């Protein structure tokens, strides 16, 4: 196979460098490079089909609907997630499986972990009232907040780039699961304890707000602002998750002294432990914490807080 990186010589050719790995037989992954005749309006999937039909019958890749509905064909192209059935083939492509998911073979990744996590959040409508009959007594307004979330095709592009979901020990459910959860949490018919599920089962507060999920979503769902933040709001109001405590400590600090003192927010969130002492000592030693201003803000209440407390208090109870 050709491993060289020379540029495509002919404009009528696509050069696809494809990740190959079968965990049952291979010690480690390799890359095979294929030259595919270029046709107008060619998609990534067309390239994979050509490779499969003509050059490497054993190549593993997955697709079903071929029309951006089923979400089964997402792969990494030149390092970033793409939908094979939807995105244009590039003249030079390195095609790899989505990151941070278990590879079954070549470009096919396992959905098992995702589905297990999804099952843990009760992904079905848990009705408050027994189902009566069709049509359901709901309006378009009831669904307005989740209309974008319903565009999710569960392709797992977001899940694959999430830096926290990439750490299974974090307990973070990941953006794709949170989109499903948020849709249910904002459904007026649902009666499950979605606040507890969001705060304690899905660990929504472990989202770092990096917006990587939004960057790669083929359905352009505002995942952070329309799925994750409504869940945080719910968990803030009804749970004692660490993130909810942190938000309360933060707001308390701002109301007390007009701005935040990071050290106090940390202390009020998780208390004083060895790590906090170690960090505090280090910061004091390098003058990153000034003991006098610490004392001032511990004792004092600043005029800034008085000026705006009224403003803050007039709005904080409105979602």
């Amino acid at each position, binding site marked *: 196979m050709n491993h060289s990186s020379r540029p495509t010589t002919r404009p009528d050719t696509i050069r696809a460098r494809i990740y190959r790995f079968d965990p049952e037989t291979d010690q480690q992954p390799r890359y095979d490079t294929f030259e595919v005749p270029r046709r107008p309006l060619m998609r990534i999937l067309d390239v994979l089909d050509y490779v499969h039909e003509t050059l490497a019958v054993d190549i593993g890749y997955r697709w079903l609907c071929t029309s951006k509905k089923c979400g089964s064909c997402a792969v990494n192209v030149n390092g970033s997630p793409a939908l094979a059935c939807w995105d244009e083939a590039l003249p030079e492509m390195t095609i790899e499986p989505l990151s941070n998911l278990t590879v079954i073979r070549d470009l096919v990744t396992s959905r098992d972990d995702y589905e297990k996590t999804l099952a843990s959040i009760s992904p079905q409508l848990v009705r408050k009232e027994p189902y009566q009959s069709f049509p359901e007594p709901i309006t378009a307004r009831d669904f307005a907040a989740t209309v974008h979330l319903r565009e999710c095709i569960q392709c797992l592009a977001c899940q694959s780039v999430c830096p926290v979901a990439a750490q299974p020990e974090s307990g973070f459910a990941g953006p794709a699961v949170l989109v499903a959860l948020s849709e249910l949490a904002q459904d007026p018919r649902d009666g499950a304890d979605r606040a507890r599920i969001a705060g304690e089962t899905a660990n929504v507060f472990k989202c770092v707000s990096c917006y990587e999920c*939004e960057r790669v979503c083929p359905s352009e769902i505002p995942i952070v602002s329309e799925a994750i933040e409504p869940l945080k709001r719910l968990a803030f109001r009804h749970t004692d998750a660490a993130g909810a405590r942190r938000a309360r400590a933060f707001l308390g600090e*701002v109301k007390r002294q007009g701005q935040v003192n*990071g050290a106090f927010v940390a202390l009020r969130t998780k208390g004083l432990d060895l*790590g906090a002492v170690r960090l505090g000592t280090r910061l004091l030693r390098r003058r990153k914490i000034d003991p006098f201003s610490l004392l001032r803000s511990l004792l004092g209440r600043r005029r800034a807080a008085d000026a705006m407390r009224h403003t803050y208090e007039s709005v904080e109870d409105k979602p």
Partner: protein
Amino acid sequence: MTRSYAYFPGCSAKGTCKELDLSTAAVADLFGIALDPLVNAGCTGAREFRAISEQLHLTANGRIIAMAEATGRDLVVVCDTCLLNLVETNARLRADAAARDAVNQALTSEGLQFKGTIDVKHFLWVLTDDLGEAGLRSRIVRPLNGLRVGPFYGCHIQRPAAAHQRPREDKPALDRLCEILGATVVPYAGANKCCGFHVVTTDESIALRMSSSHLSNATAEGAQCIVTPCPLCHTVLDAYQPDMERQQRRRYGLPILHVSQLVGLAVGLSAEKLALSRHVVDCAGLTAYLPDRPLAPAAGE
């Protein structure tokens, strides 16, 4: 011509990253940029207000913008997370009359009003766009030739894309700035990823794993320091670096600079002016690029 802005330093620059406030003031002063701090401006809410109430988020940020508007000048910030909150609120309140009315109603008691007449800018953009390459070059006395700098952008100055409707740049502002200063930009995996700050008080190990990988990658590519426009990223990469060293069982010793400090080195400001001793990771290795004298030793050492 004096450039003049309203300035919202944010909590980090007033607290655990005091060196950011000091070095920003020193650099602004040298370039004749007036940064007038807003008084009693409060807080943009980091990621917390948004998680408490959208109304609180919009009001707190609309209030800060309205205070800057009252001075008739654009608003400058030095924190990526403050930037995103303010930029998003500015766009939302300009476009959404109902949201604007609700905010303005809350602001009446303080005699403030959001009108949507000013822009919110990062100090980095003031340097690269408002001052520009020629303006920057005019004060460089010690080009950072040979210094290999790994840029760390931070999430909220680049994402979500919809919030940052800046003219498409062929190169990020931070890369352009480094090159103007004479430094060599070192590309590395993770430069545009997340530092993990927003979970560092609730689950430190997540953030440490994320940021230690950035430090490893930057070190492997030969970066001698990292420069970041965000004090929250600075806090994780610098203040928590010993924790990452403990977690990963290896030594990094990679200095993390604020944008204003990197500029300060090139325009001849002293280590004291740039408050370089107020870092957890020693910056002594960068002494060669200092114009006058070696770094002052850190307090208590």
